[in-house]
């Protein structure tokens, strides 16, 4: 980024800025001479920003590239092309120690609280590990900090010597959150943090995430497939389909005036807990499945399932992702 904005105040400048982000996973044939025969285009050209203190919701069906996006922002996958700016720093150019130092400021909360905690480590070991790795605290100091973190996420600090299997799913997710908070990060990628939890526990974790955001001024990328949860927690919401963002707007706008046919179909597919409303609802049922990201359809990538597809949608170029007014971005020929 240019130097003028570098020293500007944090309100104006986005915390995260993603430009033309692409993540391709190569498909190879052969054992010794691995010929490159194609790519899984998991993320295929994303542009968006996340403001400081904001929650950006990222929704889409499985395989649309939302988790890959989260990981590519944190450089857990190195992007095939494009840039990810954290403040002024382009993370895609960093390596080794410089990248490791930036990692302190960005953390991740994982979906599966059973798989993301090492069963052989105690809670103290799990939550304290980042402190040790980054040389922030050890010994008694570390122990105190871990106990404080446990208290912050609503766990009993005396649990410090227990193992993950002694906790329920919701409590484990709290441990994962404590670990993410250990280094006082600015930015946290929450990758489906509640999908593995029981309904009654989900609300506890959502409330906790909201409290922590307020308390520590955190910025979230909240990845989920549950549209009602995303509406609750997000300030702005991006809808992904087959590696691209098809619509991005603030929460109220997106849910009340969805412009993209895919967003409309997604919203209409969400069941509402009221039999009378359900009886009267007109569902948009999408035909078929999501096409393969190895070879996405030409033209608009949604045209194969779109109930409103026109001739122009089947031809290149793809509809452009641009502002339809008031920061409501959409990529659809029907709108532009």
């Amino acid at each position: 980024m240019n130097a003028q904005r570098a020293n500007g105040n944090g309100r104006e400048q986005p915390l995260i800025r993603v430009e033309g982000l692409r993540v391709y996973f190569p498909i190879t044939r052969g054992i010794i001479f691995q010929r490159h025969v194609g790519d899984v285009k998991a993320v295929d050209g994303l542009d968006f920003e996340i403001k400081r203190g904001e929650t950006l919701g990222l929704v889409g069906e499985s395989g649309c590239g939302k988790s890959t996006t989260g990981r590519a922002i944190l450089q857990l996958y190195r992007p095939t092309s494009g840039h990810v700016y954290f403040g002024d720093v382009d993370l895609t150019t960093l390596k080794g120690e410089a990248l490791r130092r930036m990692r302190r400021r960005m953390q991740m909360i994982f979906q599966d609280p059973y798989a993301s905690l090492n069963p052989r480590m105690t809670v103290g070991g799990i939550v304290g590990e980042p402190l040790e790795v980054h040389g922030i605290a050890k010994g008694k100091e570390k122990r105190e900090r871990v106990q404080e973190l446990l208290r912050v996420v609503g766990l009993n600090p005396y649990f410090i010597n227990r193992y993950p299997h002694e906790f329920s799913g919701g409590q484990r997710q709290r441990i994962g959150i404590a670990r993410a908070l250990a280094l006082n990060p600015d930015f946290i990628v929450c990758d489906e943090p509640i999908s593995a939890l029981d309904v009654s526990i989900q609300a506890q974790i959502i409330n906790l995430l909201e409290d922590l955001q307020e308390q520590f001024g955190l910025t979230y990328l909240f990845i989920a497939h549950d549209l009602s949860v995303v509406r609750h927690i997000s300030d702005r919401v991006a809808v992904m389909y087959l590696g691209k963002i098809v619509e991005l707007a603030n929460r109220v706008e997106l849910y009340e005036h969805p412009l993209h046919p895919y967003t409309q179909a997604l919203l209409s597919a969400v069941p509402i807990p009221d039999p009378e409303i359900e009886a009267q609802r007109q569902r948009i049922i999408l035909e078929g499945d999501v096409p393969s990201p190895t070879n996405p359809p030409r033209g608009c990538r949604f045209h194969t399932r779109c109930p409103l597809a026109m001739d122009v949608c089947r031809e290149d170029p793809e509809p452009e992702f641009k502002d339809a007014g008031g920061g409501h971005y959409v990529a659809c020929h029907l709108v532009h």
Partner: protein
Amino acid sequence: MARLLDVRDLETRFYTQDGIVHAVNGVSFHVDEGETLGIVGESGSGKSVTVLSIMRLIPSPPGKITSGEIIFEGRDLLKIDEEEMREVRGNRMAMIFQDPMTSLNPVLTIEQQITEALELHLGMNHQQARRRAIELLKMVGIPAAEQRIDNYPHQFSGGMRQRVMIAMGLACNPRLLIADEPTTALDVTIQAQIVELVKRLRDEIGMAIIWITHDLSLLAGLADRIIVMYAGQVVESAQTADIYRNPRHPYTIGLLQSIPRLDEKRRERLEPIEGVAPRSH
């Protein structure tokens, strides 16, 4: 409507090293012909063990149905022998599971898996069975069924696999279809497809359905009656409209309040059910 299934005071326990798990603890409910019953509950509430008990598919040991009656089409399923039970299973009642990948056999083609039941239960020869299998696949909306029938499960997407499972469940025209979280592993748009499909098939075939889920909102447009389970017991049972409009049990009320809803104004704060469900042993 005639009574199809009557479960009375069912008790299923698991005898483990850590003690006796009271998974199902005196559960009673019924299903009428052609009716859709929703069972809602969280993990560990005993909803899956309940229907596995009805199918007599509880692994034993360590599991055991310790008391109760399961009257299906006038017979107590707990009193008939394994031979007769096999006639009931697959033929009179069928079950579809949550994860269509693990419940299909990966080394058999779709044809082999569907025709097995047809040849076994209905005594069809192979040619008849194959024709019927293609018919079933078409009925559940699988495009190019004539070709796809020779594919293996891994060549199908999650939603398509669940359609295959449903086709297998319907193969012998069962009177009761038990669906154990059949859409939990699927995306919302695919879930909507499957729910529409099951509703259409139900109306065409006229079978009864038990639909198990943890998602109370899903049942609103699907079930005639709903029972709510918690810690191995039925805590509330009512007509679908009453459950949503006038929930009585604090747990049901808690469940309804803890989920954000798309049709309501966004609430500032969600109201969770505090604490953790107690263990059943």
